[in-house]
Every structure is written in C-alpha cells, then in structure tokens.
C-alpha cells in the first residue's frame, strides 16, 4: 500500500490523466483508479469531490450536469485547456521521475 504522502502527491495528476480521454463522473473515476491500481489505491470516496471542486476552482476542469435515469442528475467533469496543459506537465514530470527511479533501481541492481 503506497504511503499517504505518495497517494496525496499522485492524486491530482491521476485525476487529470483519467480525464484526458474524455469526460467522466466521480464514481467512475474512483472505480477506474481502483481497477488500474489493482485495488492498491483505495481513496476515501468523499475526498474526491472536494478535490474535483478544487480543480474546478483552479480552472483545470469544468463540469456539467446530465440527467440520468429516474430524472436524477449526474455531474460530469472534463479537462479545460489549462487542465490539458497541466496534465501534460504532470505526465512529463511523473515520466521523468519514473524513468529516473527505474534507472536508479537498475543501477543498484547491477
């Protein structure tokens, strides 16, 4: 199970990355994270929504309401232009970090 600090640091880039292909909603995002991490990343569901709201306040995502079955509404999120740029930056940073870590592990193993 990753440390709390690592989970916390990865949350924003992860959400931005999951929203890159297209819009999604809270429950779907959480389930996707759970699935991708093989159950290793277990967010507290309630925490996702304040975070989405923070991203929205920062202008990285935008939301819209869509009426679902039984006249209930569901809120969908998608990246803004700034969000796409932030996602690209995060991707670059995390890739570099990942490559660096991989290289260090390879060197240590030799």
């Amino acid at each position, binding site marked *: 199970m990753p440390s709390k600090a690592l989970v916390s640091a990865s949350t924003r880039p992860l959400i931005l990355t999951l929203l890159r292909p297209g819009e999604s909603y809270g429950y779907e995002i959480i389930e996707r994270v759970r699935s991708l991490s093989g159950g290793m990343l277990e967010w507290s569901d*309630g925490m996702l929504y304040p975070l989405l*709201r923070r991203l929205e306040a920062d202008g990285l995502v935008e939301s819209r309401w869509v009426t*679902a079955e039984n006249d209930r509404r569901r809120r969908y999120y998608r990246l803004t232009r700034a969000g796409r740029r932030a996602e690209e930056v995060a991707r670059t940073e995390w890739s570099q970090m990942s490559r660096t870590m991989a290289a260090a592990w390879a060197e240590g193993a030799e």
Partner: protein
Amino acid sequence: MAWRDATDLSTEDLEELEQHILDSVRAQVAAGVPESTALETAIAKLGEPWAVGREFRKVDRPARATVGLSLDLRLALRQAWAHKGFTGAATLSIGVAIALNAIAFSVIDSVLLADSGYADSRSVVEIYTASVDDVGRPPVASWPIADDLRREGSIFDGVVGYEPLFGRLRVGDGQYEAIFGEAVDGSYFDVLGVTLERGHAFSGDDARLGAAVAVVGWERWRRGLREGEDLLGSTIDLNGEAFTVVGVAPRGFKGAISGFSSEIFVPRWRLPVGRTLAAGATPPDQDRGRWQAQLKGRLRPGVDAASAEAYLTSRLPEWTAQEPESYTDVEFSVVRSDRVAVSPAADRFLYSAAGAVMLVLVAVLLVACMNVAGFLLSRGADRWRELQMRRALGATRARLLRQLFTESLLIAALGAGCGLGLCAAAILALRRVDLPIPLPIDLELSLSASVVAFTVVIAGAAAVAFGLVPAVHTMKNLGSVARGGTGDRGGSRARSAVISAQVAFSVALLVGGGLLTRSLWVEAAVDPGIRTAGAGIVTLELGSSGRTLESLPDLLAGVRLAAATQPVLDDVVFTSRVPLGTVSTTVRVGDGRGDESMVAEFAVSEDYFSAVGIAITEGTAFPADMTPEGEPVAVVSRSLADRLAESDIGLGSSILVDSVPTRIVGIAEDVKVSRPRERPTPHIYRPLSQAGAFLLSVVGTSGGRSVDALAALQAAVADASPDVVVWNRQTIEDHLDLKLLAPRVAAGLLVTAASMALLLTLVGIFGSVQYSSGRRTREMAIRLSLGAPARLVVRAIILPMVWTVGSGVAMGLGLSALIARSLRGALVGTSPADAVSYSVALSLIIGTTLVASYLPARRATRVELRRLLDDS
C-alpha cells in the same frame, strides 16, 4: 459521527454525493450484496464526514452554502417535478377543495363582511324601534322620531333617517329606467362620515328652500345618462320631477340600506318624490303616523351602543306621554352598524347558513387532505432509501421532517394557486349570472385581499392536515428500515384509517345531499294552486309614475287594448301580488266583534281567478264594473272562510277590512301565498279598483310557451305605458322556481360537495389498492403461477379494503344521523331517516368503492412471473 451538518453542503454537492452512493449501492447489489448492507458500505466509504466537510470548506467558493428554507424549497421543487403525476393529482384535489371554500368565502365576504364605507364606523349605530329578537315587527320609524333623537346631544353626535326610494329615471326621449335610491336626512353624509367624490352634500339653504337636489352614486355618475354628459350639475327627471345633481357619492359607497346598492339620494323634504300632496296633507317627513324611515346615529365619544340603548329606553315613558303616536309600543334597540350585515334577524339566518356551508366545504377539503395524506403515506414508504441516505449524510430528524413538510407546503401552495385561479373564474361566471330577484342586491364578488388571505390560511391548514402525519410517520419508519423493515410499518393501518374517514365523510355528505334533493322534489311537486305554465308576468312600479287609484282603470284598459294586438296572448289580468312572489301585502281583517288578524291581501282584476286557474267554489268573482266608490267587496280564501265560519260569518256576510265593512261575494280555493311548504294560509282578494297597488303585476296567459307569452306581454306593456317603470319580468315557471332557489342551492351545494368527496375517496381507494397490490406483485405472481385462481388473488387484495370501507360506512351512518338531524328543519315531506336517501347513498358508495378496489386488484393478477423475474 455523522456529517456535522449536511445542509452545510450546497444542493449540488449533496446531489452529487447522493448519486455517488446510488452508483455504489447499485454496483454492490449487482454483485450480490444485500441492499441494506450495500447502503451502509457506500456511506462508510465516503469517509469521515467531518474530514470531507472540512475539505469542502477549504475550497474557496463563497456561495457554497445553500442552507435553510431555500434548500428545502429547491429539494421540494425537484421532488414535485420528479413525481409530476402525483403532484398534479394532489394539486388538483387540494385546489378544487380550496376553490370551493374560497368561492363560498368570497360570497360571505361580500354579503356579511363588506365594509360600510363610513368613517370611524365603530361609532355608527343602527337605531331600531323594535327588539332585535322581534322578527315579526319591522324596526322602522317615522321621520319625526329621527328629529326627536337628534336632540339627544349627550348621546348622539348626529342621527339620520333614510327610507328606500323606488324611482323612475328618464334616460332619453320616452325612455325610463328603474332606479333604487334613498330619501335621506340633510345631514346624512356628514353623520355617516362619507366624503363625496365630487360636488357637495345637501346644505342648510337647500333644506330651507326645499330645493330639488340630489346626490348620485359613483357607478351611476360614471355611466351617466348619455355618452359624454357629466351628471354632476345637470338636471335629471326622477319620477317626473326635476332634480339638480349636486354631488357624487364616493366609489364603493352603497348607501345605508344594508344589502342593497343605492344609486341616488334625495333629501327628505322632497318626499313623496313625483307626487303632489293633497292640500293640507302633512308632508311625509313630518307625519308621525308614517313609519317608513330607518335610523342611524353616530355615538358621542365615550358612549357605547348598550348605554345608548339604556338611555333611550329610560326616556321612552316621557316621550310616550308627549307623543303617543310615535312611541306607543316602541322598544329601542341600538346595535353597532359594523356588526350588522343585513339586519339582526336576517344576520342570524345568514350566519348560520354560512356556517353550515363552510362546514360542508371544510369537510370536502378534509377529504381531499386525507387523499393527499394517503398518497404521501404510500410515497413515504417508497422514499426510505433516499431519506435514509440523507439521514446518513448527517441531516437531523428535525431537518428531514422540515424537508418533508416543505414538500407538503409546496403542494398546498400549488393547490392554493389552482384554487384561486378556479375561484377567480367562478367569480367571473357568477358576476354574469342575473340574479332572479327584482331588487338591486349588492353582491359584488371579487378576489379581494381577504379572500386571498383566507385561501392562504386554509392552504396552510391543509398542508398541516395532510402533511404532518405522513411526515412523522415516514420519519418513524426510517428506524425500522435500518433494522431491515419494509419501510411501511404501520403505513397500511394509517392509510386504512384515512380511507375509512374519507368514506365516512362521503357517506354523510351523500345522505345529506340525498335528503335535501328528495325534499326539493317534494317541494317542487307542491301544487301552488295556480297555473304553472303558459304565462308571463310583468311587474310595474306605479308609485314613481304618479299613478293613482283613479287613473288605474285607464292604465289597465290601455294594456288590455295593446295586448289585444298580440295574438299569442289569451288573457291579460292584473294583481298587486302573485302567489309565491316576493311582494308581501297584508290587511287587517276583523269579524266586527273584536277578533282581528293580519292576512295576505291580493288586489286583483275581476278576471284574475279564471285566467290563473283559481276556482271560485262558492259565490262569484267581482263584477267587471267595480269602482272605488262602489260597495267594498271581497273574495276570501277557503282557509279564511273556514276561520270566519267560526264567527258565523259566511258568503254574503260583512267583515271589516282595515276597519271598512266589506261584503264577501265569493270563496276561492287556497293558493300557496308565500312558500310552497306552507299550510293553507288565510288570504283575501279585493278589487284592484278599490284596493289599489304600489306594484302591479300584469299576467299574460297563452296556450303556448311562457316565453312567447312574456315577450308579447312586454311588447303590449311597453306600447301602452312607456312611462311606467318595469320592476320585474319573468315567465310563470321562473317565478315559481324562484321560491325553490334556496332549497335548490342548498341541495346543489351538498350534492356537489358529496360528489367531490366521493370522487376523491374513490381516487384514494384506487391509489391505495394499486399501491398495496404493487407491493405484493411478486407474491401474487408466484401464487398465480402455482395455480391459485385469479378471483382468489383478487379477493385477497381487496378484502382488507372491504373491511376498511365497511368501517367507514359504519362511521358514516353515525355521522349521517347527525347531519340528518341538523337538516330536519329544512326538509319538506321527507323524513330525516328517509330510507331512499340512505339506500342510494350506501349503494353508491359500496358499488363505486368496490369498482375502485377491483380494477387495480384485477390488474395485479395479470402480471406474469417470468416477466417479473426477467425485469429483476
């Protein structure tokens, strides 16, 4: 710890979290997790509420918190929109019931609660010359009594007299209109505190000069006589006399005669308007023997009505000694004007009638509330998941209760809006109804502020009535759901109680409506003693055209001559009053030995009896050549003849009619004089040429339709006497119907209320059975697939409803007995225990409730188990 305050989240946050939980529950249930466990898990996975709440608050969004009533209202609006069918049905149920109440209240507001328009109206009093409990004696006075009381400066700041004035206003060349007004004291407007809209009231100079001046009502002034002509300052022709219009009464002021709308006010010194006094005769406003005035006074500051009455009573012996003609048998009563709508005696009847009407309509509203309460109870059982979620999200019980009650308030508000709309439409329709009453009744219906306030109050009361119990019940059930219950603990019992009560009310209203309808039929079938078809009646007001007894034969001959040119008319006859009419004239009849009594008097032409179908059983009708100077003769009714026979007076004998010896020339069959339900009432017929008439009814008979007879008669009257004001015109059928107006309105009202209550009850039963069968669909489908006969399944569904309806019927019978007892006085020829009314009511309620139960139950048996399993 639950979320400290779920209302701290915006509606949208809350909605999003709810949707999240629903998604989670759905996914778990699909994986085989029981629903209640899935819900608990979903809520637990949201995390610690305080921590999530803190994270939300960290986000800088100042408009985040949408708390309090606006949130409740938004949620209620969403609920209403999401369940449009329920909202529509509930709104309509409540709306129609509220509309009925609002319409009735607007009539009451107009008749009983209308503003007099007097300044400081609390100090204006009615001064009656008879006890308010003495219904048999009109509390009128002579004008000199007003002058006597005006001198009592320690009690009154002012006293005014006024009397009704039936006038004929010339509106064009040879064109006249009937006009109702008042002859009034010179200080009338000052004492009542009425400031004229334009011009001025009567002055001291006018009084000294006996000036022919008049004040017109606002509405008459607005309409004018001719296009573009201002009535103020102009000269008008009233009863053939020229009056100068010096003032215009303010808008809304209807005069001092309660219940009527006066359009013109002339000073008392012009009485009798349009007629010349005989030389040496006492002017009407100085005549102590002429009792036609009514009195109002303005109390001095610090004096109340009771002390004024006590003072006047204490002075009576002295005044009686001085002016016996004025004060013998007088008993003063002083009542505040703002506590009198029409008259104390009439008010007693009107208030009790209004109370009865409101009671019936409130019962209909209660039935509608019960209906909506039943719907809410059913829906509450289906909302446990949503409410449980909100509860888990930290909403307190009080908060949820408030939310549920806000939803009820919204329905009540929509119902009130719908009710006011229906009420406004009804008022518009009622305004167009021409009241079949030949008097200017002041019934200005409007959607006034008080009607709107009343509607808001009853809508609020309705919200409490139909919303509170289901809300509390639903909240109670939340606990049982958490423990694995169905969410409907005790719900079916509550719904059954509601339906039983609805059935009970419906039975009682149906029985009441049935009794009044039966009574109406009996009353309508009563033989009035005169022909009931093929006749028209035109009533002329003779006083304002200055017709005297001497000139009457010319008028009759003129009308007869004109009628002869109308082939539709067979006969034209004349009478001072028509049986079962609104006009009431009486004379004192004595046997010459001291035994006297007042009996109804008909002054008729000699051919009246044969034309209207009254048989002369003994003797003859009057000769055709009767003159005022000839021997006074009379025809008496059978009931009067029987009474006179006790004094050995018979055909050919002489009686005293208003102290004048009069010979009985004939005995006629009794007719119904005033009311269809009356016992034989002694009455007397005198020749028109000897008795005279103030109002003259011309009856035109025909072998054809009454409307044709009436049209021909109107043409003949207009041709023969264009200057005589036509007071009223109607067919004989309309005339006879008028006396059935009150029982017809009462029966119609109760039948309408009963129909509404029954309809609402049926909807409630249908909905309840549909709901309960819906909850048991799976069970029913399994039973049917195992071979249970459909009829047994139907029976299992509707049996509880049969018991519910049965208990409602039993309660309703008890309630009916109470209603029937209270209606006893209004029933004609119908027993309060009338078996037919009870049978019809019970058959109707049992038959229709069985159908309303059977239909949804039958539908439930048509569900196929396979489809049910596929759907699940």
